[in-house]
């Protein structure tokens, strides 16, 4: 049987499950945010320094914050039904537009970080498994432990100190050279230079996780009977590792990678702050401080969709990797 029908079956199931999940997330988030003290009018009044009861009332009316909670929820859902995420009282622009500006930055950062993490993590993990118990394994284990336990922002700061301040190789923050007129390839290079440090500091924690995970998964697979069969065929250790061990070991790793997308969004807040990277993470942080719940709800909705999407991709990858998944019973 070919892989395609299996993958399609998995896709259909995942999509069907996504709809109620997203709806549940929206409603849950909405009520959670109602629990936080204060609203956008409070913060705006506070920042203005002076406000009367009347102006507060007027502000609330303008943003629809004076309605009962359920009416607010109904309004929000009504907006969503028209594919609108609402209007931000604080930024004075539609939330869709606001997020649209920030999303690409965060997505490229995350994709880059995930790619680095998986690539380096798999390589290091395979090396550790190949030399398990010997010196290279021990050394790499120490590094993995280090990256695992040191907080991301500190690594970010140290990378800036080393590569930007001392060596001067890479820019310390921002997303591109301001006022530059690079086009084509030069523009990509410029962008990449700005991305290296934030992506690396976001990735290092996950490099450690994937390295350990790959090591464990490969050692487990290596002890399986079919690996002995592969050696008995006369295959060389390299071929056995790539063709028989790695593919089986990838199955648990992809599961973890999917789960990490959500975690990475959280990590992005810190890294984007350290590197003043204009992304969703920082927007979310600002929205919390400003009690701008419409923006926050929009971001939460988007990130939950992102996580669901990532899980769907993982499901598909697994259906492709493992013939036993998605089989019609």
């Amino acid at each position, binding site marked *: *049987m*070919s892989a395609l029908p299996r993958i399609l079956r998995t896709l259909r199931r995942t999509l069907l499950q996504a709809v109620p999940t997203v709806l549940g997330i929206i409603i849950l988030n909405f009520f959670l945010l109602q629990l936080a003290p204060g609203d956008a009018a409070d913060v705006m009044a506070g920042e203005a320094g002076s406000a009367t009861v009347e102006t507060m009332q007027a502000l609330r009316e303008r943003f629809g914050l004076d309605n009962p909670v359920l009416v607010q929820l109904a309004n929000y859902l009504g907006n969503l039904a028209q594919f609108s995420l609402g209007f931000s009282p604080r930024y004075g622009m539609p939330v869709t537009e606001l997020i649209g500006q920030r999303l690409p930055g965060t997505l490229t950062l995350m994709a880059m970080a995930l790619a680095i993490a998986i690539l380096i993590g798999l390589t290091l993990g395979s090396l550790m498994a190949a030399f398990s118990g010997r010196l290279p394994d021990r050394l790499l284990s120490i590094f993995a432990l280090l990256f695992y336990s040191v907080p991301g922002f500190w690594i970010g700061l140290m990378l800036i100190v080393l590569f930007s301040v001392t060596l001067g190789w890479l820019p310390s923050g921002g997303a591109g050279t301001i006022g530059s007129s690079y086009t084509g390839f030069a523009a990509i290079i410029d962008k990449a230079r700005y991305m290296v440090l934030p992506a690396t500091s976001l990735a290092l924690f996950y490099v450690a996780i994937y390295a350990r995970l790959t090591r464990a998964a490969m050692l487990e697979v290596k002890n*399986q*009977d*079919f690996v*002995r*069969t*592969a*050696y*008995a*065929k*006369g*295959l*060389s250790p390299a071929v056995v590792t790539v*063709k*028989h061990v790695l*593919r*089986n070991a990838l*199955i648990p790793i992809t599961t973890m990678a999917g789960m990490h997308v959500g975690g990475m969004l959280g990590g992005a807040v810190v890294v984007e702050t350290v590197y003043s990277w204009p992304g969703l993470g920082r927007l979310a942080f600002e929205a919390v401080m400003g009690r701008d719940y419409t923006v926050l709800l929009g971001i939460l909705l988007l990130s939950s969709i992102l996580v669901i999407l990532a899980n769907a991709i993982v499901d598909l990858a697994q259906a492709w*990797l*493992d*013939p*036993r998944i998605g*089989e*019609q*019973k």
Partner: protein
Amino acid sequence: MSPASSRLLEVENLTVRFGSADPVRHLSFSVDRGETVAVVGESGSGKSLSALALMRLLPRNAEVPNGRITFEGTDLLKLSDRDIRKVRGREIAMIFQEPMTSLNPVATIGNQIAEVLRLHEKLSRKEARARAIELLNLVKIPDAEKRVDDFPHQLSGGQRQRVMIAIAVACKPKLLIADEPTTALDATIQAQILELLDELRRKLSMGLLLITHDLGVVSRWSDRVVVMYHGDKLEELPTSELFSADRHPYTRGLAQASIRLEDGVHHTSRSLSEIRVVKDLDGQNDYQIRQPVPRDLPPVANDDEPILQVDGLSVTYRTRNRENRALDKATLTLAKGETLGIVGESGSGKSTLSKAIMRLVNAESGSIRFQGQDITGLSPNQLQPVRRDLQMIFQDPFGSLNPRKSIRDILEAPLIVHGVHDAAERRQRIAETFEHVRLPLSAAERYPHEFSGGQRQRIGIARALILRPSLVICDEPVSALDVSIQAQILNLLVDLKRDLGLSYLFISHDLAVVQYISDRVIVMKDSRIIEESDHKTIWRQPKTDYTRALIAAAAGGETRSRALAS
């Protein structure tokens, strides 16, 4: 003596070392072209390690301090890693015990066969695929053209072992090593696989090195036998002399401890011989065969109410889009003091039957009466007092004991659950039970990993008996054990039945074992009970073709040995 030119493999003085232990010591034997040599031994004899050593596939922490393995004139131990890889899979091929796990689950069987052809014969993808289909036909996989793209999980155990054989013979090796190739398979499949191996051996004129613990297999399929015990070769002999009287005492002990179907031995007529190996004063192993004197069993009381009465019991397992009727209208009765044997191949529903009686799975319809009480619909709370009288012994002595608990904890847990709160009384009960299963009292403070398979099974039996049950369900209690241990455990079960007045429901795929221990026998196939008879009639006049086929498959392995022995 065979001429030098016909010699295929010559192993001389081979030792395998792990740290300070030598699990194989100074092993020498040879295999001629086209010959089948069997290496026989129980677990820990070093037979599998010797096989791996031939292929240089030993784990990395093992070394071979001395010895020579001459294959077609070259010493395999002296070859470089690159050169030994040219021998593996092409000159010497190997198949393993576990067909379920010996194939890569994420690659198609066609690709797994093609891989070895592309490696050694440098075939193109297309040629290799065509050859893979030919090979699948050769090993008699039906619909080979379609099955070639199947993944291993889509095949049964027997079919997977056929694929393993296809991989092994793909490059027409001169020597095939088969390490317990049929141990994990049902009796009928077992016979087919061995027949296939023998047929291929003749067709491809291979030498076959058969590694097994099963004397029945050895006597039917091999020309010569090497007997190993704890890393030492005890003797080497032509298979025809395997059952003759002047053999090494250990070989004789093995032959006597293994039960053969046509011998018709029953526990009422004699107990099984047990092998004892003791170190004598010079540190040499002294092998003793001991046959316990059987004592009389009280006759089965037929007039009493049966202890267990199962009527029309059905169990269906449901998944989201599939129903699987695992047990279909099973009806049986068991008298007090009786042993009811249940035979069947894997998937026949015998384990489901035992679980349903234990109320571990819920019945869909039908009823279970135990000691006069209908337990079919009892709630877990109501079941609690019933469970005291209804206990189970499991197959796997390794997996069924919690490795983090001491034996005392394991045995105390059921006592505490059933309200024995006095610590002194618990100690007393454990001491009694240990005496019953013949374990030293010091065992209580130790942990499961410190015991051998046979001892662990005694612990499993102790756990079942500590509540003083009246009915014990034995689910393949000796299948994971060596022949000599199997004899000890079977003798023990017979003694316990007499001393404690137990009734047994004895489930096994091994007809000889069931024949030995049962008073009556039930045959199961495809979730149904298809035949029931007393222990004499069922073997002499089986009513169904299926039972006849089972008996033929089980007896096939031993017919030759019996003819030779008598």
